[in-house]
């Protein structure tokens, strides 16, 4: 027998799955990671549904932002040794033919997340800071650094990014 809570959760997933998938992809740049990210966030939502059922989307999105940064930190620890021993030195700055999608992949998760929140989710700096638990000044500086890095990685995207950004 399906309870009201379970029905509400199913309705939320069905209605917002596509939007959440888009955000998750922009955050991770990888379909598999995005799928995992959406599932992990929805799992957390199911766990705390009684508490969040009045506004589940804000909770799920915040869970995705934090989960992505947390995963990235863990992956970075695990992958450091492989990079050092198995890979020749990577010089991303020399690759000038990156698309926006690929260029985003060379940002740190925090930079990428800040850009997604600011320019895709259309959050203000204050809202972004609140969502990520950062200060407004940190959001400002992270945005500035992220855009500068995009310009360095892909000069042909400068027109998209804006010269004074």
């Amino acid at each position, binding site marked *: 027998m399906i309870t009201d809570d*379970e029905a509400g*959760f199913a309705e939320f997933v069905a209605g917002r799955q596509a939007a959440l998938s888009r955000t998750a992809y922009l955050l991770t740049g990888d379909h598999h990671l995005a*799928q995992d990210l959406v599932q992990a966030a929805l*799992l957390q939502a199911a766990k*705390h549904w009684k508490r969040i059922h009045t506004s589940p989307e804000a909770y799920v999105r915040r869970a995705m932002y934090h989960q992505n940064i947390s995963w990235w930190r863990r992956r970075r620890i695990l992958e450091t040794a492989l990079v050092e021993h198995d890979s020749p030195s990577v010089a991303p700055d020399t690759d000038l033919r990156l698309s*926006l999608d690929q260029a985003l992949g060379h940002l740190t998760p925090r930079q990428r997340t800040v850009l997604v929140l600011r320019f895709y989710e259309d959050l203000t700096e204050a809202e972004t800071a609140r969502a990520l638990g950062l200060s407004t000044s940190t959001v400002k500086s992270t945005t500035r650094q992220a855009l500068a890095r995009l310009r360095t990685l892909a000069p042909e995207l400068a027109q*998209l*990014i804006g010269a004074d*950004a």
Partner: protein
Amino acid sequence: MTDLRTSLHRVADDVTPLPVADDLWQRGQSARRRGNALVVAAVLAIIASVTWSAVLLGDGDREARTASTPVVPDGAIPSRIEDPGALTASDDLAVGQASVAFVAESSDVVVVDAADGRYHALALPEAPLTGPVRLSPDGIQLAYAYDALGPEGGPEVEVGVAILDLRSGEVRRVPAISGSGRPVAVSGIGWSSDSAYVAWSGHGIRVWTDSTRELERGGGMLGVIDLSTGLQSTLDSSEGAVSVDGDAAATLVTSTRVTSFTSLSSGATRVPLHEQLPAVGSGDRASTSPSGELTAVDDGSSVSLPFVDGEGDVLRRSLDTELYPDGARVSPLGWAADALLLAQVDAPAGSYVEGRHLALMSSPDRPESTWTYRIVMRDIADVAELSVAVDLIPDLDGTSSQQLTHDFGDVLAPDQRDISWLIGLGVAAAIAVLMGLRWLWRRLLG
């Protein structure tokens, strides 16, 4: 910037909805239940950790033991009285109701907490090294003789009776001054059974030198202090064993007579004793029954305890020769009931109960067939000025198995150190373990 926003939307729009597992809801609910179980386990772990710490501290060797012993909220007489050795005397005199008071070998005035059995050495202001110290029957006040430099313009030395309220820590001083204005050295103090009055006995001081404390005795005096008003009545009299009843009537017993005195207005009566008590002198203990009819007196006898009434009659409560074939020294401490005296008994080797102990005994005005003799406590340390809050002794139920005292455990750690920091450390360690478990849990669950 608009182009970046548009481009991001274009990238995102190419993403097809990502499939999610069908059992997310069930997995979420299972995780929630596991989380709740973990919280319960965490709380149990904290409780177990703290309990374990307490058990460890209370069950180890003497060095590890502390005063974290069971608490009796209404107070109880401890099952043992030991000399605590060198305790740090505290200026904080608000230690709460006491069950026992005495002067330890270290000369410290020590009280035993009625609720938890802990020993407290008190830094009593202006308490002399020697002098009477008496705990009230309810265990809330401590009366002692004091001497101090007198106020400017008054006698050079101020002496009298100080009454310490063990709940508030306040000390009330009642100067003892003879009719001629000379200070009086207090040698005996007695409480009424309702803890409302204090009677004292002493002698005037004619010469007092600060360097030697030598003095020349003047005449004797008797005083009664009403604690509700702070007023005092004094009477020039002999020095002797003093007590007072619940009607503020003081009884002073000397070797040859008994004096009854309430106040100057109601006067005093002096009656010769029908049996002389040659060994009764200043500072000896006396205790008047709640009804005021009998006053038990320590006369140094080793075979019986005399009880004096207002008519000068002396009734004797003989000691059982089977218990004490060589006699025993009995000193009255107070009345647990109208016909039941608590006494300190010092018995020689070969007695049924050797050494110092406490006993409840019926007064001799009751039929001998109804007499009771009950050992309350054994193996009491050789401490001076022992007094007991007799109100804490329960009414006898007639059975020999009735517990009259409470075993607080070994409350005498070397320094009775405060263990609150140990408990705090245990709780902090438990919290640290739980935080670690939480981190591990989240790590495992991703």
